[in-house]
């Protein structure tokens, strides 16, 4: 990478934007909002391009911009951060339809989480980042990541029950 090279940036966007979009979608739960989020984060990345020096740093930077921008948007509209639905979809206990219902149920519960908790869950369990990498992406301390993940899982368990196959029980313990 050198200077604000448009072709290098275009290559980066082409290669990484699908993955960035997917993570953004999980954080905000809406396709159009995820696209706006990625567009804004990539614009910030383009401005910072000359100092990022290599593509791996550019991806870390963009992921961080997505996360902090999403948190900022939702924090300013705090009512939106906890979209409690009146009732979760029905849960079944067996066949394909039940699996679909369970998926909808879990998805709704995930989207009800406050944005910081949801971001922590997405970064840890979708992006498979370490706690330290998650902290870097969220712009917070590792201890905060632990507590956000733990709080998210407690909330999900309250909504979903104690199904051990559904949620990572070991992360319910805050170890900071």
């Amino acid at each position, binding site marked *: 990478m050198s200077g*604000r090279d448009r072709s290098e*940036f275009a290559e980066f966007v082409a290669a990484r934007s699908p993955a960035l979009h997917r993570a953004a979608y999980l954080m905000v739960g809406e396709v*159009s909002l995820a696209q706006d989020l990625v567009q804004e984060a990539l*614009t910030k990345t383009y401005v*910072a*391009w000359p100092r990022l020096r290599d593509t791996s740093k550019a991806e870390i930077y963009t992921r961080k911009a997505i996360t902090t921008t999403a948190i900022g948007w939702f924090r300013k509209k705090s009512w939106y951060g906890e979209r409690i639905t009146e009732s979760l979809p029905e849960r079944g206990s067996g066949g394909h339809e039940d699996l679909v219902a369970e998926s909808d149920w*879990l998805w709704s519960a995930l989207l009800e989480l406050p944005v910081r908790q949801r971001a922590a869950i997405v970064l840890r369990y979708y992006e498979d980042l370490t706690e330290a990498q998650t902290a*870097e992406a969220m712009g917070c301390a590792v201890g905060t990541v632990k507590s956000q993940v733990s709080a998210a899982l407690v909330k999900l368990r309250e909504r979903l029950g104690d199904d051990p196959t559904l949620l990572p029980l070991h992360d319910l313990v805050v170890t900071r």
Partner: protein
Amino acid sequence: MTEKLKQLMHERAESVDFATPDLDAMTRSGDRTVRRRRGLALVGGVAATTVLGVVAATQLGGGGTTTPVAVESPETAPLVWATGSTLHSADGGATNLGHEVRSLVRTSSGYVFADRDGTVWSWTDGEATDVGRTDARHPELVSDDEDGLAGWVDDSGDRPALVVLDQATGSVQQYDQHTEPGQDTLADAPNPVIFFGIDDGMAYWRDNRGAVAVDLGDGETRVIDGEMSTGFGIGDAENGLIAFTNLEGAAATVVGTSREAGVGLEEAWGTTGAFSPDGRWYSSEGDEQAVFDVTSGERVTLDLTQKFATGYEWLDATTLAVLAADRPRMDATAQLLTCKVPAGTCEVVVADLGTFEELEGDFALPVGEPTG
């Protein structure tokens, strides 16, 4: 045991098709930022962000009560200044920043300011966030207004730390490996820790190695003046050019990559100054305007009748903001002008800011240090 949660997220994320990002829109927007076409304007007390940000906020807001105005930002940055906790712009806009402003800089993402207690605040998207501490005696800030970076010296720990904030992501990085307990942060102190500037991903500061240029991407450091003993040695940096100030000899300022290899600017007496965004022009701080062509060292004549005038900030590549008054006295009325360089034509934009006496202790221009 996280399998269902993970599986769900993968299934949901992969079930959606996303439109290809609009590369032209991103690079256009980014280039506008780089060209100082900032996505920040004061509109009816609401700090409008980029058009994208406004769109997103509107979507999030749903039936909210405020309708942000999507404003195509001007090519030339607006004149701004702060009195008390209010940020004013020359077009009549005023925004309450929520905290008294003693020192102010702008970046491509917003503003960074320090209050009377030395608390450093980041102002983005209409909100002030506490991002650190600096010396309350003389709060000094630096920024790259073509990027989202700002910097300051934090004197609250056991040793001074140089701090860099990226407003675009909110990340804060501290550098204290080359400072020591007891080092002062005022420029006239012996062996001080001073932040001179940030440009193009490089930070310029003085620590116990002397004046150094630090690549904020990979940390690579170049000592640019190991003999610099005070905090008055660098006026500004832009596009790899450094204005070395406070020199003895015919040229008080030398512009180049080192003190030894550069163009001399005679009568550029100011210990600080401002390069134009392209590095072509340099305005030296002082009681009378002193703008130079850094390729030749020649001074540019501005059509000013005021007895006091100092250029302090470039609003674009050829427009210099000037603080002026008819007389160099505290009871004189302060004015803000814009001057075109090299044409030399000037226009009074704000005719009456109040007298310097009235502004004292309560006035900040976006230069990174208390103005009044």
